[in-house]
């Protein structure tokens, strides 16, 4: 559509976040810097429980960093805004609305043109394979369908930046792969800025243009990998691709190192385990 898209690059500069105070203070994010480039799908991966969700709260504007700054298109983030849309881990579809009313919620709340949004809602529901379920309530849908409905509900708002916090967590492997394809398809449709957080390596590599690898607690950026495998990508082809497998090995090595840090609490057993593991990996 529009050839010159407004820049909505998100830059985190030396962000730190501490929860609590005094002896109960816990530093979750420490001196963390990264860039979410405009018009790209950036995936953040890190050991579980490493403070990624806290970072999302900051980017979404639900919380403020203790120090450092986060800007979007040059403006500092000081609260939730229409320019960023967050899709959380848990399904937040309104249980009291049908799939259709859920998807139409954003445009209706903002008082947008009904006919145009209805056409868009129909298009999106078809795209995620839910057109037959438009009059069902969320409880009547399976977990995967709920996530798809939620994707449609988010996409209809054409957010400048879409933030997804482990959106496919808890789905079985088959539904997960299906979701990757639905989601990648929707992303390729209009190439808005997307920020996707996950702990799943295959998911990260399949989806990402850029991959941010995070350290263990307190979180900071460990390294950045550009993934230039052409789109649309294919799950089977990716499994056989040398390029994808090389990236996977690299990411796994980095993540294992980080995961092991949280393991080695000084106990001999953990050290033995670490030793045995690194021998096998080496």
């Amino acid at each position, binding site marked *: 559509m529009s050839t010159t898209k407004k820049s909505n690059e998100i830059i985190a500069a030396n962000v730190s976040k501490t929860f609590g105070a005094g002896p109960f203070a816990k530093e979750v994010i420490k001196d963390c810097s990264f860039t979410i480039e405009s018009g790209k799908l950036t995936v953040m991966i890190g050991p579980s429980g490493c403070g990624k969700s806290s970072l999302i709260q900051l980017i979404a504007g639900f919380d403020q960093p203790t120090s450092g700054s986060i800007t979007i298109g040059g403006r500092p983030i000081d609260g939730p805004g229409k320019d960023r849309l967050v899709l959380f881990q848990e399904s937040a579809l309104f249980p009291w609305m049908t799939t259709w009313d859920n998807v139409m919620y954003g445009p209706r709340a903002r008082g947008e043109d009904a006919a145009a949004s209805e056409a868009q809602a129909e298009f999106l529901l078809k795209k995620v394979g839910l057109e037959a379920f438009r009059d069902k309530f969320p409880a*009547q849908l399976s977990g995967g369908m709920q996530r798809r409905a939620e994707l449609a509900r988010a996409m209809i708002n054409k957010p400048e930046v879409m933030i997804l916090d482990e959106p496919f967590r808890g789905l079985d492997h088959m539904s997960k792969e299906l979701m990757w394809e639905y989601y990648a398809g929707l992303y390729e449709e209009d190439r808005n800025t997307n920020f996707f957080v996950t702990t799943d390596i295959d998911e990260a590599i399949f989806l990402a243009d850029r991959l941010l690898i995070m350290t263990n607690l307190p979180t900071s950026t460990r390294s950045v990998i550009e993934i230039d495998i052409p789109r649309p990508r294919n799950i089977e082809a990716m499994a056989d691709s040398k390029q994808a497998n090389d990236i996977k090995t690299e990411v796994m090595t980095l993540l294992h190192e980080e995961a092991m840090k949280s393991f080695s609490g000084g106990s001999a057993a953990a050290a033995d385990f670490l030793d045995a593991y690194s021998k096998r990996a080496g």
Partner: protein
Amino acid sequence: MSQSNATMNLTMYRISSWLKSPKPYLMFVGFGLVLSFWYFSVEVWKLPRFQDMPSLTEVFEEWFSEDPYYGLSIYTPEYYKHIGISLRRIAYAFCLATALGVPLGLFLGWSQKLREYIFPLFELLRPIPVLAWVPLAIIMFSGSETPVIFLTFLASFFATTLNTMLGVESIDEEYSRAAYCLGASRWQTFVHVVVPGAMPYIFTGLQISIGVAWFSLVAGEMVSGQYGLGYIINTAYIMVQYSQIIIGMITLGLFGYVTSALVRLAGDYMMQWRVRELALGGD
């Protein structure tokens, strides 16, 4: 149109499957056991302490008699006048308690500040039993009608308000966040998320509310009042017309059950999403 059709079909389906299940017939067995215990203990075995009780036959003969001995049966207009007045009091008190309690509960749950002002006061007043309010109600309100309605209203109001507030607090914050993210204003979030999200608790509150309304009504009618089912029971006791006590009690039970069922039906009607959730995806 198709929505209300589906609702109708769902209701019909639920009724027909209920009738096909053993549940309604087990219900008759339960009734039969209690009634036969009553019959045998009073009339056949004449157990000690039971001999002064009105017997089953005596009560039912009186209740269905065209010319009742104590002047009250299903054929006398007097009987319906008592029922009508009790029902009217319940209706006033319950509607008032709902009209005030639901909005107050919603705002208490929604606004931290309002809760800090009002909730401690509320929690102090709530445990005071309705009977303790009787003297004050008689002093405060003139006539015999308003004190009874006030007493009936009181317990209902507390139950409705508290449950509504808990309902708002029970709503997952994810829903409000999602609404804000999608561009809803604070007021829109209140209307589209807080109100429907609290609905299950509100209706639990209304179920309790209608129950305690009957409870307080009878307490109120026994002390102050010239008509009503509570009045019948109390007067019958003083006048030693024991069979009337039982007629009053059974009538109370019947109407209590019917009004509860009506509240539940209204809840089902307003929360189709929940009915379907509980019906495990049936449509």
